[in-house]
């Protein structure tokens, strides 16, 4: 046992201030998530209910095992866009009959559940998660199809939806469609491409062309039910495997289908877990409001890993990056966490070695990001910071063990890459409300623009407009600041959600369990390079 001790002084004013700031951000997060939960608003929710229908999240609650956890993914999708927060679809990881599944539920109260570009990205992300982690995919279908004004953003890339479904199936990952309502035109291929299809009697409507289109195309008179009713599909076309009496029955059948998948997880079985010795609640008071002030990530590790038990690797070498081994909810993990923000050559080499060691022992990696990037300056360039940074990025990019990333604070520059940012395909990536990501800090970025502008003016022999420069800097700073914020980035699907720091252990534990549905990946080809 190498139990971490905490130096966090919870009675200090600094702790109180950090905690208060974090709680304020969490209140904003809740407010934004509430917008997604509210769906299309009271009017459309009421209309949906008067039709005797369940809301998307109600369907999910009934589908998953009672009292089991459910991790909603990308709840802030479309934040900052022209479309409602949540992107008219709910996706997440839930447990159905003891099987971890990816669940995708259209929210028909938002513009009829129509897909917009963000809906598409959110849905595709869910399918990726299902494929990478070998998780059965359950679609709760009720969608009016594509949002026609933005069809150019949807139509061509949207074909992936159907390709993903059948590729999942080809990979041995079951796909289930419970059709509650409209699933027409392109949407008809969701049940079409699924392994198991349930349709709700008198509600499901699945056809390629509706009555008006059929009339225009062939002159035939037809009604919804004869073109695509659940009864027709169950009796005649065979597109529906099960005819459900109502929505509850469809969910019941869906659960029975999952039960009969005879699912077996192929990965590691967790060891017994003990709670951290330090209070998770104190995670609220660790990250400084000003991200220029560093914090010790061991305070975070001590509050998320089993028994606060952490075996640190190379503690004396490259001290600005903390690396080490721990268990989380019984699953072994390797942790990489930024300590002083900056990554130097030693840190990069240490990271590269550690990642190789993790690959050697098939241990998943957890990246805890708070980095301002790789060190710049003459001395560092000369000592090969690019080479070392590349080494680390190379290791991250080609590591085959599952990666999980949590952005606690700063995530700037190539540090974002080396610490397994979105582009490096971690299995899951979550951000704390205190996170910020950009190519560099807003002040630095504005300053760089100012220096470049001043140099250009001087080269042209002009007098630099100092007033204009100040306004430009303020504007750029504000814009970069806004675009570095977690809601904005989450809205663009650059993470899988903004989470409460106190939920970190739960979220990571849930993801580790999900990951282990797939077999452990095969190791890469080289021995470990000593750095």
């Amino acid at each position, binding site marked *: 046992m190498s139990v971490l001790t905490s130096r966090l002084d919870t009675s200090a004013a600094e702790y109180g201030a950090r905690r208060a700031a974090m709680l304020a951000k969490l209140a904003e997060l809740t407010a934004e998530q509430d917008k997604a939960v509210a769906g299309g608003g009271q009017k459309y929710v009421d209309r949906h209910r008067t039709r005797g229908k369940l809301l998307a999240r109600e369907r999910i609650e009934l589908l998953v095992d009672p*009292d089991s956890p459910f991790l909603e993914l990308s709840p802030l999708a479309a934040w900052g866009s022209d479309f409602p927060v949540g992107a008219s679809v709910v996706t997440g990881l839930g447990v159905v009959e003891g099987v971890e599944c990816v669940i995708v539920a259209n929210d028909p109260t938002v513009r009829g559940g129509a897909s917009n570009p963000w809906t598409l990205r959110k849905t595709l992300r869910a399918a990726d998660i299902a494929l990478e982690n070998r998780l059965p995919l359950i679609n709760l279908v009720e969608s009016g199809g594509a949002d026609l004004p933005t069809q150019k953003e949807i139509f061509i890339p949207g074909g992936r939806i159907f390709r993903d479904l059948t590729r999942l199936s080809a990979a041995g990952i079951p796909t289930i469609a419970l059709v509650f309502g409209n699933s027409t035109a392109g949407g008809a291929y969701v049940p079409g491409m699924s392994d198991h299809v349930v349709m709700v009697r008198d509600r499901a409507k699945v056809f390629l062309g509706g009555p008006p289109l059929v009339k225009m195309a062939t002159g035939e008179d037809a009604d919804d039910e004869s073109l695509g009713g659940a009864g027709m599909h169950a009796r005649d076309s065979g597109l529906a495997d099960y005819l459900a009496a109502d929505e509850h029955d469809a969910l019941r059948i869906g659960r029975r289908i999952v039960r009969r998948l005879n699912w077996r997880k192929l990965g590691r079985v967790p060891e017994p877990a003990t709670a951290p010795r330090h209070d998770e609640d104190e995670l609220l008071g660790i990250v400084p409001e000003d991200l220029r002030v560093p914090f010790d990530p061991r305070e975070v590790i001590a509050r998320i890993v089993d028994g606060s038990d952490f075996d640190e690797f190379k503690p004396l070498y490259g001290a600005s990056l903390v690396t080490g081994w721990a268990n989380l909810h019984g699953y072994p993990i390797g942790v990489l966490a930024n300590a002083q923000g900056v990554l130097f050559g030693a840190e990069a080499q240490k990271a590269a070695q550690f990642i190789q060691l993790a690959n050697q022992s098939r241990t998943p990696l957890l990246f805890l990001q708070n980095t301002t990037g790789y060190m710049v300056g003459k001395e560092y360039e000369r000592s090969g910071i690019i080479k070392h940074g590349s080494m680390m990025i190379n290791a991250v990019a080609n590591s085959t063990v599952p990666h999980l990333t949590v952005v606690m604070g700063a995530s700037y520059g190539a540090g974002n890459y080396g610490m397994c940012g979105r582009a490096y395909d971690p299995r899951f990536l979550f951000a704390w409300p205190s996170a910020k990501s950009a190519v560099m800090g807003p002040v630095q970025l504005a300053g760089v623009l100012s220096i470049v502008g001043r140099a250009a003016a001087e080269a042209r022999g002009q007098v630099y407009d100092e007033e204009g420069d100040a306004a430009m800097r303020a504007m750029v700073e504000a814009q970069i600041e806004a675009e570095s914020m977690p809601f904005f980035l989450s809205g663009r699907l650059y993470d899988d959600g903004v989470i409460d720091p106190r939920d970190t252990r739960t979220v990571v534990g849930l993801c580790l369990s999900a990951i282990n549905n797939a077999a452990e990946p095969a190791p890469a080809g080289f021995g470990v390079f000593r750095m």
Partner: protein
Amino acid sequence: MTVRRLLVANRGEIARRVFRTCRDLGIETVAVFTAADAAAPHVAEADHAVRLGDGSPKGYLDIGLVIEAARVSGADAVHPGYGFLSENAEFATAVLDAGLTWIGPPPEAIEAMGSKIEAKALMAEAGVPVLPTLSEDDAGPFLVKASAGGGGRGMRIVADPAGLAEALESAAREAEAAFGDGSVFVERLLPDARHIEVQILADGHGTVWALGERECSIQRRHQKVVEEAPSPAVTPELRRELAEAATNAARAIGYRGAGTVEFLLADGSFYFLETNTRLQVEHPVTESVYGVDLVRLQIEIAEGAALPGLPPSPVGHAIEVRLYAEDPAQDWRPGSGPLHRFEIPGVESEFTVSALRLDSGVRDGSEIGTHYDPMLAKLISYAPNREAAARRLATALAGARIHGPATNRDLLVNVLRHPEFRAGTTDTGFLDRHAPTEPLADETAVRLSALAAALARAAANRAAAKVLGGLPSGWRNVPSQPQQAAFAELTVSYRLTRDGLDYPDVTLVSADPAQVVLDVGGVRRAFDVADYPGATYVDSALGSVRLTPLDRLPEPVEQVAPGSLPAPMPGTVLRVEVKAGDPVSQGQPVVVLEAMKMEHRILAPAEGVVAELNVAVGDHVEGGAVLAVIQKGE
């Protein structure tokens, strides 16, 4: 004539009661049983057990089978218990004729008391007070009774002379069916009377004891529910008079063994009601107060022993309640089904005198059937005074874990705590007037119990989870609605958050699948939760609550009228064999359907009438379409 191996021609608690004394005396025990009782406790604990014939439920009433059981088991004595053949002179004679010792009075005494009409005449002759004969101008109310009756059957209350004829007729019919003797008689009904009875014990040597009185006024439909000794209404003077009358009665019929003389007490006068020539259900209260074992005395008397000259003196107060699998709130409907758990806290003894005595015919896992009396057990408290005995009994009952069919437990507790009972002023009309059927658990208790049940189930769900069992219950990063547990009685909505239970005015202290501790308004309360298929029981100091968990996603039930005949598959109607309104017998063809070149005959499921006919020859029908509806004959 020492008894070596004794057969009890009975079941349930009384069989076990007799066995207990046999064990004390070193007598081997023989149980008899029917198929329904094959797994009953009385069978398991006997040294020998004999199935009665083919196991038919009426076996306990079959004299030949019981005598045969005694023969094959090598029994040398028979105890009849109460009920069944206990007051059947023919049975007593058969036992004696088989050369066995009969633990009971002489058949002649049974015979003499068997007819209430004749018994009454006999008692009047012996100087025992009886109700006066009716005269022409009696205005009522009246009580019609079966001469051979017992247990309230063949009994009718009639308000005025106009209703008498009809009551006599129906009572006679019921008596004929129940006892094989349709004789009935009429007495004046004493509405405010108390039921007082005297325990008699007579040996074969001329000694007759009167072991004081028992009061059994708390009755529902003439079935005793609460009994006690002594009676709060009996003065020492009255006690002496009652003892004398009972002793006279016993002597008048040459009684031997244990018996009971029942009286009605009204306005300070008492009237002979009937004599029960057997051990009474409520005998334990007398045993407590007199410190005797009546079954032991019965056996010893049958063996020829003599009673000491004077009976022991009474000490203290004893109260018995009869716990029935009957729901007082549902018109006393008897319940049946598994009794998962039966546990009464603080019981000090079973079948022997103590401060809290349990005489039970059931145990955890017993199946409560419909063939026999729904009494589960008797609970008897014994204390220096009446108040203390009532308090002990009520508290023990209230805390009992009874997980099975609905019982009269709450009613019994309500009676024991009722001011009228505590004042000792109850009469036989008490339950008709009050019927305190309100459950001990009030609305708040039910709500909290359901919450506890929901939280216990959540804990069980987490413990049983195949994956993610270590994560917080019902955890959500985006909470949109509460966790829910639906019961037929009410639905519980709650959410477990990092700050604990999100539920108004309740703090969760701890929850595991079997127990939930809640802090409600500063008071900690423990709720014990037990889950069984189709029922959840929550026991707490607030009362016991039974909940019926509802399936979250029930299988849909086809909404078709009973008796509907659906088409088994799509097809064409080939023939229609009936017309609407036709009577049909079971299995009679109604419609013949042709489908896939096969003829399918749709048959009437039961005898009845064609209430609906929806098809004609040549019709094409969908699978599941209702072809016809047969209304079952009454």
